[in-house]
């Protein structure tokens, strides 16, 4: 039996007012089936807690577009989950934030696209900066635990010092600075998004100094871009090891980008219990542990450090999810990591609402 998971990411909807070109949601959003109902989500959360989940991330898309978000959070609290809302901030009015607080939401994470408002709105594809700042003020006023997250790429990495100051001025308890990971829309846009080595080298000492300067006031988490690493990231802490994602249509994934692994079939909470999916389903068992590994992973001394890297990236770039993550310098397909940059327009994330319900 696998050990129990600790963290569930609930993607409540793919609907979103923003159009960020690095979104990890499926590119073919229009194919998404109808969203789970309120009762479905409540059952999923009860099952998750019974399975051992402690941390709940409420994400999307924009989770606040679900009118039943209060009901879902109230249920999460009742079964003993720690809830984090991962939001654009758009729609987070004072009355709604108060209701979310009252039903037990503990932590709010608001995305910002850049410190420079015009760049930020160019990335988001929509006027959004004033609304995000207003949302941040409301979150502080109501004394939520508050994180700012910023996805980094070529257009904003040079502003990293200003971005850190922005988060501090908003009163963030935590700041997540995550270099773009190239899945979904981000993979489509990688030539326009990928930073240069010079940009990364310039950013590093600025982040290091800020981590020290803000110690005790604001925790700063910096996620490096794996395309420039020698070894792959220990993706998800291992496949089916601590983390699971429930997509808007009820499919259960080992990570939010796993939908792109076409060689796997993902079971759905409409048909199966969460515990069965975690423990028994083919998709979760496929890359759990190390029996699935091929060379160079199988005999590698690092295989329990990074688990062969990211299965989604292996599939996306090599066509076989069992291969070593090509980020790894030991991968015979390492040459597939393409860091070519090009000043081409973003292909913005779009989602026609017709396929969605609720």
């Amino acid at each position, binding site marked *: 039996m696998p050990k129990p998971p600790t963290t569930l990411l609930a993607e409540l909807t793919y609907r979103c007012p923003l159009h960020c070109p690095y979104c990890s949601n499926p590119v073919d959003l229009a194919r998404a089936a109808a969203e789970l109902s309120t009762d479905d989500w409540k059952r999923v959360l009860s099952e998750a*807690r019974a399975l*051992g989940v*402690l941390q709940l991330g409420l994400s999307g898309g924009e989770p606040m577009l679900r009118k039943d978000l209060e009901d879902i959070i109230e249920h999460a609290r009742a079964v*003993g989950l720690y809830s*984090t809302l991962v939001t654009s901030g758009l729609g987070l009015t004072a009355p709604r934030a108060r209701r979310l607080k009252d039903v037990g939401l503990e*932590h709010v994470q608001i995305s910002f696209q850049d410190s420079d408002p015009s760049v930020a709105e160019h990335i988001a594809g929509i006027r959004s900066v004033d609304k995000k700042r207003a949302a941040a003020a409301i979150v502080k006023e109501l004394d939520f*635990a508050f*994180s700012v997250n910023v996805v980094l790429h070529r257009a904003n990495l040079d502003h990293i010092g200003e971005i850190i100051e922005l988060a501090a001025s908003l009163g963030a*308890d935590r700041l997540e600075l995550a270099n773009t990971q190239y899945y979904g829309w981000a993979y489509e846009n990688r030539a326009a998004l990928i930073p240069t080595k010079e940009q990364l080298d310039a950013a590093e000492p600025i982040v290091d100094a800020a981590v020290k300067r803000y110690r*005790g006031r604001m925790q700063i988490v910096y996620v490096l871009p794996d395309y420039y690493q020698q070894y792959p990231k220990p993706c998800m802490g291992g496949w089916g090891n601590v983390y699971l994602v429930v997509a808007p249509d009820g499919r259960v994934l080992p990570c939010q980008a796993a939908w792109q692994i076409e060689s796997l079939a993902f079971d759905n909470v409409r048909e199966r219990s969460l515990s069965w999916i975690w423990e028994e389903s083919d998709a979760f068992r496929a890359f759990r542990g190390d029996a699935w590994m091929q060379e160079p992973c199988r005999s590698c001394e690092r295989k329990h450090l990074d688990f062969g890297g990211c299965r989604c990236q292996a599939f996306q770039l090599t066509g076989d999810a069992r291969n070593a993550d090509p980020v790894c310098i030991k991968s015979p397909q390492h040459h597939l990591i393409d860091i070519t940059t090009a000043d081409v327009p973003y292909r913005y994330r779009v989602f026609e609402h017709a396929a969605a319900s609720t």
Partner: protein
Amino acid sequence: MNEVKPRLWRLARVDFDPVRQRPVLLYPEGAMFLNDTGAEILALCDGQRTVDEIAAVLSAKYGADVTKDVTEYLSALVERELVVDA
């Protein structure tokens, strides 16, 4: 370190996980499972007692000097910013 008056980070709280039958420290984006000794140490981190005073309470309880263990345990949590100096 021994004069520090530790208390939990304001965004962290100790809960009990009935699935694993263990105490757990919960905080934004994280969960750290505790053993009974760890939970006992954290329960004494009230922002009033110093690390030495906490160690003295537990040393008396267990009839052995646990100052080194308590100090190391709390130092690691301070390093991770899960415990702060009141």
